[in-house]
């Protein structure tokens, strides 16, 4: 068996109390919502049918969970065995991420009790159909990829073997589903050529979403590793993270290229100098959250400093959040109704509760399951 890293923390800490409190608050909000309707705790209305929960909990949540498939692909498919130490936390982050997305969706959906309708009523024209299936299937994949930790903890060898045997197909399925899923979230907005501001609208939204998801995957691994190394006081694989980060500038470069190429292609570059909200957002994203981290990550000094790595990763993450909000909320002008949507405090509470639940779950898993495995050598095990 692999060696676990012992965690030296008391079971009940102030942090746990705070997280629990936040989660309970979110839960209460959700209960109000179930009893009195979405209108009771959200500022959603017919002008703004999707708000914070879709923009953040779903769109950002899924994007930020992309570390799982990136790492899994690296380790299992692209021969990046070195990155194995990053794998389990990344899978967990992804898995939790998806669970939280589902949790949030269960609050956001008008009829969560009918979620299973997705399975029996098919409309294959609908991007939402794809999104739904990807969530379901990929969560399943993540669950399977994560299951060995549980089996290990329980000492169940047979099922663990089974998973082990399936790990490659799972990784392939995971990468495929993630690609479909990450991109399909972008595709969701391809049906809004009129409502979405021209700077942000493009039929290439799925590609953009996918690219940013690929970029943010390593960034998330960096974030999660850095934080957990500090919180759980364990060693940080700075070298691995630095290597992982190398890929980011290429992806971001591709993203910039696609973005400008697309606007140039549709002859809408001039919109960028309108200096309105949308063009402002565009430049903010491109300069502050794409170009800057692109440069930073290309610098060896940055990649070798945990602080700078974290900072640059945060930039990428921030950029993804910004672009998700831009597409799904800010630049989504309803031409008729100047909708000024600001999330309701209780809406925020649900999101915070969901995040708190995620952090708490991570901590719990970290405490009770063999999450952080030593890198190697492990020949002794069997």
């Amino acid at each position: 068996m692999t060696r676990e890293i012992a965690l030296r923390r008391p079971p009940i800490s102030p942090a746990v109390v705070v997280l629990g409190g936040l989660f309970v608050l979110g839960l209460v909000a959700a209960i109000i919502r179930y009893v009195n309707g979405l209108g009771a705790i959200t500022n959603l209305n017919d002008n703004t049918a999707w708000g914070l929960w879709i923009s953040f909990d779903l769109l950002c949540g899924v994007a930020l969970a992309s570390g799982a498939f990136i790492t899994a692909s690296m380790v299992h498919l692209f021969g990046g065995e070195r990155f194995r130490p990053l794998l389990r936390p990344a899978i967990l982050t992804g898995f939790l991420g998806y669970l939280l997305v589902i949790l949030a969706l269960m609050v956001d959906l008008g009829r969560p009790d009918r979620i299973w309708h997705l399975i029996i009523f098919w409309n294959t024209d609908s991007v939402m159909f794809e999104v739904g299936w990807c969530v379901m299937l990929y969560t399943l994949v993540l669950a399977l990829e994560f299951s060995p930790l549980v089996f290990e903890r329980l000492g169940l060898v047979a099922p663990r073997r089974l998973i082990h045997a399936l790990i490659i197909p799972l990784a392939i399925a995971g990468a495929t589903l993630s690609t479909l899923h990450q991109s399909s979230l972008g595709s969701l907005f391809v049906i809004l050529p009129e409502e979405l501001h021209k700077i942000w609208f493009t039929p290439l939204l799925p590609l953009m979403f996918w690219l940013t998801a690929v970029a943010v995957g390593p960034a998330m691994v960096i974030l999660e590793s850095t934080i957990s190394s500090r919180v759980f006081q364990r060693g940080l694989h700075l070298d691995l993270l630095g290597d992982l980060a190398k890929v980011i500038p290429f992806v971001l470069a591709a993203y910039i290229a696609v973005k400008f190429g697309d606007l140039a292609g549709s002859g809408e570059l001039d919109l960028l100098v309108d200096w309105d909200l949308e063009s402002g957002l565009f430049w903010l994203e491109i300069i502050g959250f794409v170009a800057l981290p692109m440069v930073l990550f290309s610098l060896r000094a940055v990649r070798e400093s945990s602080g700078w790595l974290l900072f640059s990763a945060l930039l990428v993450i921030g950029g993804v959040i910004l672009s998700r909000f831009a597409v799904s909320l800010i630049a989504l002008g309803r031409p008729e109704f100047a909708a000024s949507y600001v999330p309701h405090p209780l809406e925020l509470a649900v999101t915070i509760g969901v995040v708190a639940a995620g952090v708490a779950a991570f901590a719990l898993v970290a405490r009770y399951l063999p999450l952080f495995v030593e890198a190697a050598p492990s020949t002794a095990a069997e």
Partner: protein
Amino acid sequence: MVSVMARVAMLFDAFRCTGCRGCQVACKQWNDLPAEVTHNTGSYQNPPRVSSDTWLLMQFREVEREDGGLTWAFRRYACMHCLEPACVSACPVGALYKTEEGPVLHHNNRCIGCRYCMLACPFEVPTFQWDKGLFEGPQIKKCDFCVDRLSAGMEPACVQTCPAGALMFGDRDELIAVAEARIQEHPERYVNHIYGKDEAGGTSLLYISPVPFQQLGMPKLGSAPIQKDAEDIMQKATPAVLVGMLVGLSGLYWVVKRRQEMMGKNGGSGTQGDREA
């Protein structure tokens, strides 16, 4: 639905419309929709927009004409019953569907409440019951073309009410002919365009207007169905990516593995770690 003539449509003549809102109220009456609590915010228009309780809203716009004159333009704001409805395309569970006869309907029992249809509709028509909890089961609501009346051989409530003859119900091709004739006979009254004939792939609601349609409040739409790109993605790109990735990644894995095995033979560190996934 039975006995509905094929391709039913409605013609809204904004020149004739007097903004009396008889249609708006008749719609509520027939469909038994409650009134909303409203306030005068400096306009005749109320409620502010269509909602689950208001499926049809007359909107009021004061449009200054080029000749210095004024037009008080009244826009019918309700479902357009698109020939190729974006809402239908968007609905993951097929809760929205286009009937052969024309109306676009909502099959409430299927709906999961994702509200993607609300985003997808270029006319911002579908609405949601924000104030209904899980037990009351919130629904997506919109004009249903009065199918219950249609199947009983009656015209929609709004059409029947309209005192100014601004609404006409009938066969789509025939109504297009009527609209064309009106424009031709009175070019001074109308903009030379039938909105909905081609917009977004065509709609069952056809509009003619004395002011440019954007000033009337209609979105500027091309003739391609709004969901064309999205459907291309679903029908072409998605399967391609799916298959491509499954095959590609398997191939890649195979190649990488081969290479590593070769390297392993050459004294590499092996792949024992696999089992630790």
